[in-house]
């Protein structure tokens, strides 16, 4: 288990319990089980308390947790017959965005998502989930494919943002994002997005302009990272706690603002503590959401999606 900074007290208690049990194993005559159990209970209570009222900055840390299930984990566990489709047909295949045909409970869909990677090697290969224009152009191509063959589109959003690199800019990062957002709005099939970790700015919008936007309980979605916001408005990147607070980037605030449609509850202590349960919860929510769109015509879908975004934010926090 990798503990976050604010989980240190928890790590101490859990560490003590483990220590006790290890000691007991060496000296069988010692009976520590009672004590250890008390510690377990204490740890459990602490975990519940910690996660009940996570501050926005702590949510950011949880959303970025390395043990959290990533796009590939969800695809592997929830979908069958996943057939990755690669390339933008112009320049390259971007490994930061994965996508392809797959079945969700036997229903054929197109699934697209940002993958951050799970160890150093795969993180580098995936560019930490920061896509280049090729990634967005691949997504556009896959959405076109979905529309042509009437397959729903599911996107799994988890990115710090689009990659700020020289080549990415030269090849039209902004244009690729704009076109991807445009494509999301154009396809005559249901588009469902789940923010599973970090929804980072334009790089997220490009895949998250959807009929229904779901968010995991401890995921975040924002216009800029709290560090970036702090360095611009506070002139001090260390003020990220204040920035995170002011930005309203938690799933709970975004639901209030009407920017997202549904929150998917996470297991106690976050998705990273029970990956299987978190993945199952997402699967269930996706299934239920998709069912709502059965039989809807392309025109109706597009019109409703447009209206949703045109009306968005008209009420502010009062919504």
């Amino acid at each position: 288990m990798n503990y976050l900074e604010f989980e240190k007290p928890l790590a101490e208690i859990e560490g003590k319990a483990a220590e006790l049990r290890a000691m007991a194993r060496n000296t069988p005559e010692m009976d520590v089980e009672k004590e250890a159990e008390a510690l377990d209970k204490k740890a459990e209570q602490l975990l519940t308390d910690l996660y009940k009222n996570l501050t926005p900055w702590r949510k950011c840390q949880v959303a970025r947790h390395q043990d959290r299930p990533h796009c590939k984990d969800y695809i592997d566990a929830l979908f069958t017959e996943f057939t990755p489709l690669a390339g933008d047909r112009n320049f390259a295949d971007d490994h930061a965005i994965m996508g392809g045909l797959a079945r969700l409970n036997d229903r054929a869909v197109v699934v697209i998502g940002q993958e951050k990677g799970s160890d150093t090697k795969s993180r580098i290969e995936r560019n930490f989930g920061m896509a280049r224009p090729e990634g967005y152009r691949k997504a556009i191509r896959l959405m076109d494919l979905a529309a042509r063959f009437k397959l729903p589109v599911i996107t799994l959003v988890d990115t710090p943002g689009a990659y700020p690199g020289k080549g990415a800019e030269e090849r039209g990062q902004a244009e690729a994002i704009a076109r991807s957002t445009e494509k999301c709005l154009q396809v005559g099939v249901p588009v469902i997005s789940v923010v599973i970790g970090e929804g980072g700015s334009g790089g997220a919008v490009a895949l998250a302009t959807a009929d229904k936007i779901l968010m995991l309980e401890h995921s975040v979605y924002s216009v800029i990272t709290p560090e970036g916001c702090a360095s611009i408005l506070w002139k001090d990147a260390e003020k990220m706690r204040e920035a995170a607070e002011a930005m309203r980037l938690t799933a709970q605030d975004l639901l209030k603002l009407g920017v997202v449609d549904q929150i998917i509850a996470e297991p106690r202590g976050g998705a990273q503590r029970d990956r299987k349960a978190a993945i199952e919860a997402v699967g269930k929510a996706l299934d239920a959401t998709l069912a709502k769109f059965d039989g809807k015509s392309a025109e109706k879908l597009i019109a409703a999606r447009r209206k949703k975004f045109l009306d968005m934010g008209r009420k502010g926090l009062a919504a």
Partner: protein
Amino acid sequence: MNWITNYVRPTINSLFSRREVPENLWSKCPECGTMLFHRELTDNLQVCSNCNHHMAITPRDRFKALFDAGTFSEVAVPEPVADPLQFRDQKKYPDRMKAAQKSTGEKEAMLVAEGEIGRMPVVCAGQDFSFMAGSMGMYVGNAFIAACERAIERRAPLVVFSAAGGARMQEGILSLMQMPRTTVAIQMLKEAGLPYICVLTHPTTGGVTASYAMLGDIQIAEPNALICFAGPRVIEQTIREKLPEGFQRAEYLLDHGMLDRVTHRKDMRDELITILRMLTGLPPAVAADLPAPEGAAAETAAEVAPAPALVETPKAGEPQS
């Protein structure tokens, strides 16, 4: 020593240089350092007469020069919820807004206008970089949508002049949502068969570039305008190398296939007329016999009545330059 070089000398220098440049008469070109007489600079649309450096121009001044006889009317923009997030950094957002309104005399960072350009009805939206860096929030989104709706209503083309540091951070996620919102409006405009011309001016960055500023039927930029998604400083920090000369400038983007044209501000009006007339099936524009309106004459005329600047009856062999 340090105290003298770092504090005393700059203070003395700044006192003197301030005296050298009376604020309301002269300004200095930030590019070549030439002193430019204010009136001359205004007549030249804020372009340095020495080095052709394009300085910032407010949408209002731009529209005065763009519309026939400087006449246009503003298109009303639906008022968004003020301070939707109750955002507070070192200052409260409403206080920052008030300061920006006071310093610019404008309500918000985008001005929408309709009028005639070359006697053709056109809707224009201009982003005001001097207003909180032209940043895109709910109001700018509403303004852009209002511009599209007005264009559809009038069956007129839409020309947008972009200039922005990106999204309005004080509106958080709602500013980000202006990316899909404005895109919806562009789709409606395109479905109505109307042209959307995007003129990218210095600087156009972030979420604005990654939405409506890159979705024009025709993409024109002003010379040397910085146009990017991520700014050069962010990229240098990420890749830890120096960026090439002219990186992310209009001419660089033109070379990399991201723009149709780079056009000098003084040629913009004629070019827009030429392009829009072709896209909307109108015959070539013909210059009128009337003398070209002088700056001052045009402004008074503007207040009295819309004066026809161009006559549409075709006249042999006299294409509008």
